[in-house]
């Protein structure tokens, strides 16, 4: 009949669309979980907190998934959101610890021999990375997780590759100075 709307068919289309969207999100979640957790971990140095922040970032990404269906766009947005949430979490955690009279310490518990030396080296590296300006820090973090190359980092940060290259150079120089 002319003008007749097949409600069942229309509903089926919506259900299909929702299912496709869910599947796409599931793929993004599977391929970007490590990225989000590592970005958060680079800021927080705490695995559980890092997972918590990364989960929050994914939940927010789901709400905006209509605008983030493109893979590159999704990953770039996820990195920015995770970084921001992790920074916020760290600030509030520091405020809480300051209120309670405690102090943040990234030093690992003391242990014997080589392990103690490795822990000390790792703690120094953490402190050196922390001392970097945020623009340099985010570049060195992204360049060293999941083997991202310069172009990947440039896409994630939405800056030119040359900018990433110069920032990475500066970050390495600064780190070497700090670690000497």
């Amino acid at each position, binding site marked *: 009949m002319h003008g007749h709307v097949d409600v069942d068919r229309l509903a089926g289309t919506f259900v299909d669309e929702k299912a496709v969207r869910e599947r796409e999100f599931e793929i993004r979640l599977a391929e970007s979980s490590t990225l989000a957790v*590592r970005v958060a971990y680079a800021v927080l140095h705490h695995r559980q907190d890092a997972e918590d922040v990364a989960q929050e970032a994914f939940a927010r990404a789901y709400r905006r998934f209509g605008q983030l269906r493109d893979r590159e766009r999704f990953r770039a947005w996820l990195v920015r959101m995770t970084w921001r949430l992790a920074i916020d979490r760290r600030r509030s955690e520091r405020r809480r610890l300051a209120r309670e009279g405690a102090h943040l310490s990234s030093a690992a518990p003391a242990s014997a021999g080589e392990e103690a030396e490795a822990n000390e080296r790792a703690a120094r590296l953490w402190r050196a990375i922390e001392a970097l300006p945020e623009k340099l820090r985010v570049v060195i973090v992204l360049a060293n*997780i999941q083997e991202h190359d310069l172009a990947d980092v440039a896409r994630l940060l939405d800056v030119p590759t040359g900018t990433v290259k110069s920032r990475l150079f500066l970050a390495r120089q600064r780190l070497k100075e700090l670690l000497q």
Partner: protein
Amino acid sequence: MTPEEFGERQADAALDREIQMLFAVEPSPQFRAGVRVRIANEPAAAERRHLWWLGAAAMTAALTASVIFTPSRPARQNPTLTGRSIVDLVLPEPSTSRRLPSDGVPADAASPFRRAPARPRHTRPAEPEILLAPDETRALRALIAGVDAGRIDLTPVSQATTPDVMELEPIHNLVIAPIAIAPVEGVFP
């Protein structure tokens, strides 16, 4: 590549390996399930957020309505004005202890008890005030006092009638003399 450059690259690679080891954490097996739980809990959280907004909106509406529909009290006159309101003339005179002195400051202004609450400056009076000159105020007050004391009887005034149309005599012999204006001497040549 010079030996210095080679050494530099080696040092960079070593540093990168160290950093990679530092960040080498993997999401736990429960990570994805945790994301799904958060997403599933989202509608409830969103609903709570909407309820909060709804409550805030209702409270704002109630406050606005109370401000709009609360009848404002008639404005008291400004004591610094020389004139008096007709409303004050008709209302009973306040007691002596509450009367404002000439400087406009209440006698009990220094008392911490029962001070009149400060009224907002921008309260609009319910009715426009009619200001009277001081001498008219005195005259009206004297008239009202006289009527109250029985010294002045207003009955004839209240019973007096005015004819709707005044009957006037027709004018028949009206003569208007011509006006002669003499020229002013010395003005024109």
